[in-house]
């Protein structure tokens, strides 16, 4: 019994000892460890997903790799849940999010946004067989959206985007609080919508590139109406490190200016999403 207890204590101490790291100044930590820890999520093709070799791939991933390259450090990806990420207080668990995050006013209280790296349209999608002609016909219907995202905020009429060059928008489609259906990721919402028009959902609000990817993979869906809004998507870091913020801000400007971002956008989306929409 004594032996077993000792052994377990050793295991416990090793498990705890090797795992944690005390939070420090973010930029110093990255440069000292020579590793940029980026948070990502596997459920957003074509932004970020695991490719056939089980490696991270996608537009966001490419941008993150480029940032690490220019900082002169290696990159490592972590996979926290989206709502854990947007809650802020990262405590140095990861240094940066290149995860297509919209810099909303609410999020700016918890996180700091060095720069917008592209803009994507958000649109409403319905089942292929649905009779709707325009998105305004979805008023009062059951709309699916991802939890803690701008899409859910839009449906709740609680979307304030805090970024330069973000085009203005109106709330074209409104529905009752009960009819806003929250999902862990957009694919689950598409799964519910594919069951048929009005079976569980009447429509989904999501990012147009993601919707197009789903349609390409055989989902019986159809985008209706003009985009609801354009979301500027930014790199995010934890609050409180101005030096890191400034360094990243300068780098993102550079990435825009030298055409790196446009090239990556064309590679992954087929279109250049890096300019603000008119």
């Amino acid at each position, binding site marked *: *019994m004594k032996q*077993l*207890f000792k052994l*377990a204590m050793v*295991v*416990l101490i090793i*498990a*705890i000892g090797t*795992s*944690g*790291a*005390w*939070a420090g100044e973010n930029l110093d930590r990255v440069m000292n460890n020579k590793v940029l820890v980026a948070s990502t999520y*596997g*459920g*957003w*093709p074509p932004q970020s*997903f*695991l*490719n*056939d070799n*089980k490696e991270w791939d996608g537009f966001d991933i490419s941008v993150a790799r480029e940032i690490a390259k220019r900082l002169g450090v290696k990159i490592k990806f*972590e*996979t*926290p*849940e989206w709502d*854990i990420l947007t*809650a802020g*207080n990262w*405590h*140095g*668990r990861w240094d940066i999010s290149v995860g297509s995050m919209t810099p909303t006013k609410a999020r700016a209280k918890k996180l700091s946004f060095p720069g917008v790296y592209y803009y994507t349209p958000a649109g409403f999608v319905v089942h292929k067989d649905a009779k709707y002609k325009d998105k305004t016909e979805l008023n009062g219907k059951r709309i699916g959206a991802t939890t803690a995202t701008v899409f859910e905020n839009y449906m709740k009429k609680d979307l304030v985007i805090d970024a330069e060059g973000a085009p203005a928008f109106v709330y074209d489609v409104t529905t009752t609080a009960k009819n806003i259906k929250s999902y862990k*990721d957009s*694919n689950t919402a*598409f*799964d519910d919508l594919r069951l048929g028009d009005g079976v569980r959902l009447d429509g989904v609000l999501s990012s147009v590139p993601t919707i197009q*990817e*789903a349609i390409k*993979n*055989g*989902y019986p869906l159809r985008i209706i109406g003009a985009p609801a809004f354009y979301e500027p998507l930014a790199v995010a870091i934890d609050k409180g490190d101005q030096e890191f913020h400034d360094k990243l801000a300068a780098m993102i400007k550079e990435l825009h200016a030298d055409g790196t971002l446009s090239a990556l956008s064309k590679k992954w989306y087929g279109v250049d999403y890096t300019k603000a929409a008119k």
Partner: protein
Amino acid sequence: MYTDTVIEEKLVHKPKFLGIFLGVVFVILFALNLADTIFGHFLTPVIGDPAQSGLYGRFAVALVLGILFTLNIFAIGFLPTPIQSLVVWLELAVFFVSGFHIFNLSLEFIQSQLWFLLSRGLFTTIYVSAISIVLAFIVAMVGAIAKLSGNGFAHGIASFYTSLFRALPLLLLIYLVYLGLPQMGYVIDAVPAGILALTLNYGAFMTEVFRAGIESIPPGQWEASRSLGFTFGPTMRRIILPQAIPVIIPPTGNSFISMLKDSSLISVIGVWELMFLARTLGQKTFQHMEMLITVAMIYWALTIVMEAIQRRLESHYRTVKVNKA
């Protein structure tokens, strides 16, 4: 299993029972209307186009399936009991697995992902659960002894612990550990946070199991030991626990089986165990149904193995007790 010594005619061989059984099955199948399914297509020569066959098709399909099903039951009745159980088991398994047919799964995709699911996902699930169960075992042992000791402090701490951590849902506990500890200044990684949460939760439940196990040792043992001059520590270590541990091990195996599945909850903090990979791998090509079902099958296979080990453990400890007596 209890072997009945009274020999009766088998229920499934009584004509009255078979008649009623056939009637009930027929009514259920008729209500389900299976004409336009794979079963109907087998009967196309008799009923014509299944979609057009109407009530007649519905009736014919229900009747044929009902008779087949009843005959199956009747035939199984002739087999000796262990084989009976095996055949029923296999039939249910085939029926269940063939249900996946309707999902139209891509086997190629599953094959291409299987090795990664096993080498990364299953491995993580098992090692996280194994470390947690060892730690929970220790926590539970300490907790149970504390609860049974005459020391008010120890009893207070232990009963507070079981009361609180049996009350918290595991998912909530995982979030609390992962998000809460950093607020207090210690940044914990996802895997240790998951192990800690599983340990605290299972430790609390197992404390109660261990307490019951220790209490199952007759008090005479304790009294005899004390009157021989053993103090609390040696009495526990040398007299009570060696007898209690064989009682405690089988339910611990049971906890381990359920922990293997509860460990899927730590996917929310980004640990790459089976459940996390199930939700991640299929996303690129939108083939997540494939992954979910594959992982369900892996959990099932894992549990079958664990149940076999559990049975061996139980019979092992049972034998030891009998030999000693």
